[in-house]
């Protein structure tokens, strides 16, 4: 199969499937990072103090904070298994930089969605938060996963092959992903107080769109043409 015979979307799906198959074998995101995130959710009350009403208030915020910080680790695992040889082979097969980044983003998005869905019951169990308006969380899960997936794929591309990539990647992503954190926590709070959560969803969608456009512009410039 060569790139000429498959549409860019088809190529993107093939690459995402490859990343997900690797994840199924290694289990790094869902079997290592997710339990690590759950441990963080368990440890936070020990630092804050076992004040149940306070923890009910803090629960959603801590959940999204763990999703943001540990989710970045999920997105950074890909370049560790993709060496220069694999990238060169894809280039020779005619797979463009944008398609490669889109494939990685898609796989990241699926994994992050799974990561969020795994951690959500843990947060509910540990913190017992007020879940008024919980159906609004469904689009939030998708939008946060998408935004973080794009930013993570971009940071992964920037830090690929570097010795300190696991520390550098989160430093590059975390400050830029703050609107995702604000939007995600804002939706549930708005629903709790009877306000429309649309502005927060719009913020999330805007961040996703800007990040996607930025990634599409950046991808060819990250190509090594030497």
């Amino acid at each position, binding site marked *: 199969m060569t790139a000429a015979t498959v549409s860019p979307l088809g190529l993107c799906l093939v690459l995402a499937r490859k990343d997900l198959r690797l994840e199924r074998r290694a289990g790094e995101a869902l079997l290592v990072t997710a339990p690590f995130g759950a441990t963080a959710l368990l440890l936070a009350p020990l630092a804050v103090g076992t004040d149940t009403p306070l923890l009910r208030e803090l629960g959603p915020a801590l959940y999204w904070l763990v999703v943001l910080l540990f989710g970045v680790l999920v997105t950074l695992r890909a370049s560790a298994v*993709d060496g*220069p040889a694999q990238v060169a082979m894809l280039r020779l097969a005619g797979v463009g930089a944008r398609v490669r980044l889109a494939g990685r983003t898609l796989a990241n998005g699926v994994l992050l969605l799974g990561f969020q869905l795994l951690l959500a019951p843990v947060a509910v169990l540990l913190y017992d938060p007020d879940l008024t308006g919980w159906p609004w969380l469904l689009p939030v899960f998708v939008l946060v996963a998408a935004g973080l997936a794009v930013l993570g794929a971009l940071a992964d591309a*920037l830090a690929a092959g570097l010795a300190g990539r696991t520390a550098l990647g989160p430093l590059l992503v975390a400050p830029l992903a703050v609107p995702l954190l604000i939007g995600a926590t804002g939706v549930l709070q708005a629903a709790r107080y009877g306000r429309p959560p649309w502005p927060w969803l719009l913020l999330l969608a805007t961040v996703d769109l800007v990040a996607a456009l930025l990634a599409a512009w950046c991808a060819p410039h990250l190509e090594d043409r030497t």
Partner: protein
Amino acid sequence: MTAPPTASPGAASIGPVFGRRLPIAAGVAGVVGLIAAMVSPPDFVQGELVRLMYIHVPAAWTAYLSFAVTLGASIGWLWRRRPGLDRMAAASAEVGVFFTGLAIALGSIWGKPTWGVWWTWDARLVTTALLFFVYLGYLALRRAIPDPLVRARRSAVFGVAAFAQVPLVHFSVLWWRTLHQPPTVLRPGDPSIDHTMLAALLLNLVAFTLLWALLVRARARIAAAQDRIDEAEPTRPLAGDAVSAPRLEASDV
């Protein structure tokens, strides 16, 4: 007879770092700005504390300027691939991080007697702190990449992406309800500041801009000299010929 000691490779081509005229101009402008800040009237509400504004605002302005130059130089590098543009982007980001830190520190010193706290969760403060960390990330990215071409390419891409934070900082006081005052000079219509104070502020803006130009030029010149030394110096084995050091090669996506 022994041979005279030879200079290190590239040393002969290192020019003056600070130059002559720009340090004098920056020094004179700094003295004039300081005098203007001292003789300007105290604020009706803030009293003498207002004088911190003459450093805080120019520091924030030079930070914006730095990141705008980093953006421009990064786009320029992606377009033309000239090493000088990469050095300019890096030098400007370094100086910008310094001035952002200065603006945050001075804002904090002003905030303690005015608001009663060193730090508050105000939109302008938080977005400025994020800006600081975004560009620390930019500098960390540069330090992590040993290959000059890969470093220039990746940091140029991030230099463009990072600038998205700058308008967020500037407009944060308009988009959110904040304790920080809204724009007083960069706004439509007549500036909402006493004109004597505005004159002193503008003089300090000029002084800080000259200081910024001096620092960026010096840093870019040092980087250029370092590049020349690196190019001129032959690759030497670190532990003799018997042991070869592990090679740091940045792979690409």
